[in-house]
Every structure is written in C-alpha cells, then in structure tokens.
C-alpha cells in the first residue's frame, strides 16, 4: 500500500521537480489558507494552531483575511468544541483547534461521546465533518499538565479517524484530506515539528487516509514511529547507518485507518521490530502496533519486540527529567542496536 522511498522519483532532485523547501508551520498554514479560499463552508474555531512559539505569527494572515471564519472562543473547551460539532452537523466543515493537546480533556465528552458516536447512532444518516486539532507531547517545560499525547486514548475510541503527519510534505497533503473526509478526524501536530524544514511539492497532492510512508528503507530492523518521533527516528537511522545498521522507518501517518500491510511487510522482511512513540507506555500507540504484530506476524520475528515510549510517569518540568523520559534518537538507536545483537529466537 505504501509508497516506498525508492518509488518517489529519486532520479530527480526535489529542486528539479520544483519542490519548495518549507517549514512544517508554513506548509500547515498554506494548507489552511488554501482550504479557506476554496471552501466557503470551512470554519476554524480556536487560533493557536501553531502553538505558542514564534511561528505562531504565520497564522495571523489567515485570521485577518477571514475574520468571520476564524473564531477566537472563550476558554471554554467543551463549549466551543460542542459548537464545532453542532456546526459540522449543520453542514460546515469545521476545524476545532484545542491548542495544547492536554486541553482536549476539557472537551472529551464532545469528542469521544458525541462526535465519535454520532454517525453510528444515527444509523449512518448523519455526517459530522469535523477535525480536532492539537499540539501534543513534550514541548520543553510543559510539565505534567501541558505535555499530553492523547492520541492513544482517541485510538481506543471508535468513530474517530486519526492522522499524525511528521513532515512538511505530509502535513501539506494530509490536512485537506482530513477536512474533506467528511468524518470526525483527530489531527495531531507537535510543537517541535513546527520549525522542521522539508520539501513540499510545487503542486501538493492530497495524501489519502490509511497509506503509510516508508520514510527510510532498510533491511535490518523495522522502526515504526509517528509524529515527531519520526524525526527523532530519522536522526537515529543516520547514526545507525554510519555503524552499518540499515534501518527501515515506517511512518503509518494515519492510525485510523491503519495501513497494517505496509507495517507487516516491513517486519516480515526485517524480522526485527522497534516501535517508537511519545504516548505513555501502557495502552499507548506502541502497545497496539506491538499487539498487532504479535497476533499477525509473530512467526516472522527473530527477536522480541521493543517499545521505545515515554514511561508511565507524568511529564516532569525539569529539562533533565523531561529528556530522560523522551524518545530521543539515542534511546531509539540503542533499542535498534540491541535488536541486532540480542540472541535470535531459535526456529526450525
């Protein structure tokens, strides 16, 4: 299902293809601006889409160009999220921005018990075209109350599509898909992604739901990672390559729907799996990927699975403590190395 890195025309350099080098934040704002322009029914509630960093000013242009369709609500998450759900039920295409992911808890009843269930409860007769947007994860000093990654909890909630871009090209291609999908979609960003630079096609194409991306192909170990941990994994892959370990990095990009085939094919090829994710360890994104592998491809595994996640500890403030819990390139590389050196399971 997934395009591998080798299919996408490495013959031509990005420059030759007319791609532009953009930051993630720029690519995101470009997608939003395009949607605003093309779709008079597109409404944004909440306007910290780019977070609290200096990049946030980029969003101002959109806000000022469409003051009636970019609304700054009160600090009332369940209220304004519910407004978004209702507006979507009455035909608008809504992006509700919760800014810091942790604030989605305030809105949880509307997200998990209204939007997620509405189509099903109606017997498939009601569409709720809404996107819930937030910035998740360790952001540097967010501490326990502002560093959540609720996407695993949301994956445990049927009725929500979940998209987690990890690069400028991905966010540029995925946001329009989310808005046009016509269904409740969680769109997961990360403040550390905002300044990440990368090539974005001159004519961006929509990236469909359920298509993983092989961010690096390799033969030794499969790393599955999402969101910012893809960037951390890329950096680990580089180090590992210099040590002669050839890592394959699979980015599911969307977990609902999930491109199981691409993940499983990669594991079948390498026989070694490391799952990296910034959700807390227990019942996290990595647990589900590991569980799927343990059900579907156990016999191909040469070594047990390893998860590299944020441990089951609230996020501490101190930078030293925060990075101890982070899914750093060092931790990822160490896990991959271990997979290469540990004893293989004996098979016939």
């Amino acid at each position, binding site marked *: 299902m997934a395009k591998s890195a080798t299919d996408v025309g490495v013959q031509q350099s990005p420059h030759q293809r007319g791609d532009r080098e953009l930051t993630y934040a720029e690519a995101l704002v470009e997608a939003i601006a395009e949607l605003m322009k093309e779709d008079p*029914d597109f*409404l944004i509630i909440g306007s910290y889409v780019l977070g609290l960093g200096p990049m946030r000013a980029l969003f101002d242009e959109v806000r000022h160009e469409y003051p*009636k*369709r970019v*609304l700054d*609500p*009160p600090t*009332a998450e*369940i*209220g*304004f*999220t*519910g*407004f*978004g*759900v*209702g*507006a*979507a*039920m*009455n*035909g*608008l295409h809504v992006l509700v921005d919760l800014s810091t992911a942790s604030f989605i808890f305030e809105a949880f*009843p*509307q997200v998990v*018990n*209204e939007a997620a*269930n*509405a*189509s*099903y*409860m*109606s*017997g*498939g*007769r*009601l*569409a*709720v075209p809404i996107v819930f947007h937030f910035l998740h994860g360790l952001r540097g000093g967010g501490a326990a109350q502002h560093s959540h990654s609720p996407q695993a909890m949301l994956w445990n909630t*049927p*009725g929500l*599509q979940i998209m987690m871009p990890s690069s400028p090209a991905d966010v540029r291609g995925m946001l329009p898909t989310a808005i046009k999908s*016509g*269904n409740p979609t969680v769109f997961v960003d990360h403040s550390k992604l905002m300044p990440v630079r990368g090539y974005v096609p001159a004519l961006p194409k929509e990236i469909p739901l359920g298509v993983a991306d092989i961010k690096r192909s390799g033969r030794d170990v499969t790393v599955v990672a999402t969101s910012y941990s893809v960037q951390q994994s890329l950096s680990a892959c580089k180090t590992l390559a210099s040590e002669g370990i050839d890592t394959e990095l699979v980015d599911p990009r969307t977990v609902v729907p999930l491109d199981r085939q691409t993940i499983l094919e990669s594991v079948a090829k390498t026989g070694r799996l490391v799952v990296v994710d910034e959700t807390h360890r227990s019942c996290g994104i990595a647990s589900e990927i590991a569980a799927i592998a343990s059900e579907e491809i156990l016999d191909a595994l040469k070594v047990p699975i390893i998860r590299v996640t944020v441990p089951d500890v609230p996020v501490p403030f101190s930078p030293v403590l925060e990075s101890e819990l982070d899914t750093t390139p060092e931790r990822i590389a160490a896990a991959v190395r271990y997979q290469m050196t540990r004893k293989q399971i004996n098979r016939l």
Partner: protein
Amino acid sequence: MPPQRFEPESAKKVLPDLEKTGLIELLHKMLLVRRFEERLIRLAEEGPSFGHYHVYIGQETIGIPALAALRPTDLVFPTHRNHGYLLSRGADPGRLMAEILGKQTGLNGGKAGTLHASAPELGIPHTSAIVGGIVPIAAGAALAAQLKGSNQISVALFGDGATEEGATFEALNIASLWRVPVIFLCENNTEEALGAAAGGYPKSVTAATDLGSIARSVGVPAVVVDGTDTRAVFTAMSEAAERARTSGGPTFVEAKVVRWPGSNPLWPELPAGETELRFAWEPESAPEQLLRWYRDQDGLLRYLREMLGASLLDKDDAAEIDSDVRSQVEAAVRFARNSAYPTPDSAYLDVFAGQS
C-alpha cells in the same frame, strides 16, 4: 431562600393563536405522545427490557407547541427524553417504536434505541443522552445557520438537570458572544420529583432559585413560562424564534411543569393505568393518588378542557381522535414487534458516514 413552589395557574387561557385545525393538530399530537408513552411503559413491563428509558408524559404541552412555533427547516436537538419531539415532528410511530425495540426497521436501524433515536430528515439530526451534551451542539448548529445565511434557527431541548452542567453554561456564554440564532428550551420538571436519596431519579440539584438567572448572567435574555400552558409556551417560543431569526441572538426559555408521578421512580411506571379523557371534565373520576396531578397539573387535560369549553370540539370528537391515535400506536407496536432484528453483521457498518 427556597424556590417558590410551582403550581400551574389554572385560570389562564391556554389556547394559542392558531386556526382551529392547528389547535386540533396540537391535541392530536399530544394524545399521540401520551398514548405512545403509556403503551411503551406496558411494553417495558412485559419485557424483554429495552434498557433505561424516559417518557414524555406530562410535558406534551411544552414540546408540542414549542415545535409548532418553528419552521420545518429549523433544527431541534433533544436529550434523553426525546420521544415527544420525534412524534411531534412527524416521525412514524412504528419506526420510532421499532427503534426503541432495536429493530432493523427503526428510525436508526436499531443502533440508537430510545436514548439516541433521531431523524435527520425531520430536522432532528442528533439526540444526546448525556446531560448537557446537546446544548453546545444545538448552539453550534445555529452558528452554522448564521454563517451560511440559511435563516434557520436551532433549538436545544433539555431538562433542568442540564443547567447543572458546565457545558450548558459555556454554551450560553458563547451563544451570547456570537449572537447565534438559538433557543435554549429548558423543561423544568423537577417540582415534586424525588431525589436520588428517595430511590428515585434525581431532582435537579441547583442553588439557582431561578434558572434564567444563569442565562442572564452571560447576557442571554430569559423568560419563564408555565409549561402546562400551551399558549404561553407557543408565544414565548414564537417570540424567541423571531428574535433569533432577526439575529437578535439567543433566548433561554424555562417551561415549568410538576413532574408526572410515573416519571418519579428511576424506571417509568403507570401508577394507576392510562389517562382517561373524562378526567378532563370529571376530575373526580381520576384515581385517588393521581387526582391532583390530573386535575391541576396535567397540561394535556387542561388543553383538552379548554378546547371543549370553547366548543372547538366535543367529547365525541376527542374520543375519536383518541381512538385514532390508539390505533396508530397499536399499529406501531405490531410493526415494531413484527420487524426483524438487524443482522449481526450490520454492527460493523456506519462507524463512519459515507463508508457503508
């Protein structure tokens, strides 16, 4: 300061300013709802259980005139006590009953049940059984109407309990700030409701002695009406609708009734059989323990009494309407009972719209 006891003002005239056919249609709907719900309680007693449910008996004179004050394109968003609105908007009683029993032919193919039955094509897109859940949603639909310039208004239908939820407060504030065309219709049935402590369903537990003051604190104008007074409800809703439609923003309408005794315990019951029409003109004929409720507190009988008094119909006409709706309800029960359950496979469909 304890809130003042609510008691309907029986001297007031309760017929709204409508043609005779309109007035009769209202009565027809009220009786349909009453008979539907009474029958439902018997069905529940016979079993099998269809889960926890709530009936609209004793509140017909709120929802029915309220919806009559709207246009068909306006949207209404109910909460758990939703059967009355669905019937009032013309949902087929058979399909509603089938939904309540979980049948394939139900309004929502059996996925919704009583708690979530909805009818998007009748302007009832979504029912939330989460207290307070529907309020911001209804207001958000009004925001969409406003942005699209569709001239629709939207109505949030909820109980007094929902005013205890912060979600309702937040929705009131935002609706006021953004001046969206929404009406918050709060059906306050807490008078004589039992508290949880008495083994019944919770009566509302709020320190507000006037629910409208919550709305007013964030600039939403509020009125309170006697919910057994069909005319008062119709007028208040017509005025609120007019304000909303001219972008005058939201209104909070509180309609008070004395809770129907059969809704007092946690599971609905018919404490003394079905309502008889003659209770309207011979209140003494009502069963002892319900005499006061039927005589003074039942909006439906009050409405019927005044219709009769004004010679808009006679007792035989009333009996005919009643027998009409009774056959409709019996037909609905037969339809629902004879309908098949959905196939187990269909459990996996409809998680996402447009994908099955």
